[in-house]
């Protein structure tokens, strides 16, 4: 029941974030949706994910506020609104049809098939020695996934540095 209330709140906040006229209001809507997502993770018994979501959300909000506090970008309203609306509706219908077909094939929410994860739950603490089962999986059984995540983060930082570098650094000196 609380989960449904939080999901409704998140949908409302997301609509506000999309439809708000100025950037700061939509940023507040976005952060409200992120807070709702963190609470939903808590209700679904995933405290580690909830902590990470909350903290990353705070960092993103700080960066976005700092980047958009002095700019108010105008929204383009006129133009090909008929074509835009029709194509958007067509795409939404297409996507919903495909999603309905795909969701019928998934297992029921909350009762997954539990193939290999049964072994993780049974043997996790014994094999790795960690009391936190999430860490036992992410750093024990699935360490190479974390290695790939670290690589992705490293690549992202290098990409940001390379994109935002001043052009003509060699010419300037």
């Amino acid at each position: 029941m609380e989960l449904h209330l939080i999901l409704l709140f998140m949908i409302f906040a997301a609509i506000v974030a999309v439809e708000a006229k100025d950037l700061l209001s939509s940023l507040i809507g976005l952060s409200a949706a992120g807070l709702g997502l963190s609470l939903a993770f808590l209700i679904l018994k995933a405290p580690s994910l909830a902590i990470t979501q909350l903290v990353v959300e705070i960092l993103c909000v700080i960066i976005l506020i700092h980047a958009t506090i002095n700019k108010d970008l105008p929204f383009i309203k006129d133009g090909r609104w008929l074509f835009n609306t029709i194509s958007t509706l067509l795409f939404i219908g297409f996507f919903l049809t495909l999603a309905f077909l795909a969701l019928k094939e998934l297992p029921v929410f909350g009762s997954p098939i539990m193939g290999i994860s049964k072994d993780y739950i049974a043997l996790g603490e014994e094999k790795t020695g960690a009391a936190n089962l999430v860490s036992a999986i992410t750093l024990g059984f699935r360490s190479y996934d974390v290695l790939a995540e670290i690589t992705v983060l490293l690549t992202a930082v290098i990409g940001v540095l390379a994109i935002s570098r001043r052009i003509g650094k060699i010419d300037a000196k």
Partner: protein
Amino acid sequence: MLNKQPGMTLIVKTITRLTVGLILIYGIYIVLQGHISPGGGFAGGVIIALSLIHLILAFGREAVFKKMNEMRGLVLIGGGALVFLFLITLGFLGIGFAQTGSRSMLFNAGIMPLCDIAIALTVASGLFIMFLVLIGLASKEKKT
């Protein structure tokens, strides 16, 4: 850059001086307790980066660049990733994990706390550098 006085007002500076150490210590706690309670390297690293960003927002960049700047952050990113790669490849030798104490002890789960520390180094310095670059504070020698 824009203001003559770097940073924010006196109230913000005073409260920041009181709270930023607590935030940093809480981040380190989250990192070190990653194999016992919820948390871990990612969440703790982001909290450590948030404490540094808090300092930048309150005091201006000059006060933080004495302790942590872009070059040092790059070294920490590379070092953390290399240490993590080394620890992960230890798994091929089969010396990864061992239960050396009771389940609530700090040095328990083999290489897991070390992995958490390496991840936290990478995440904290990476997000710090991303903040600097995206906000545009990193160009310190460009504006003469």
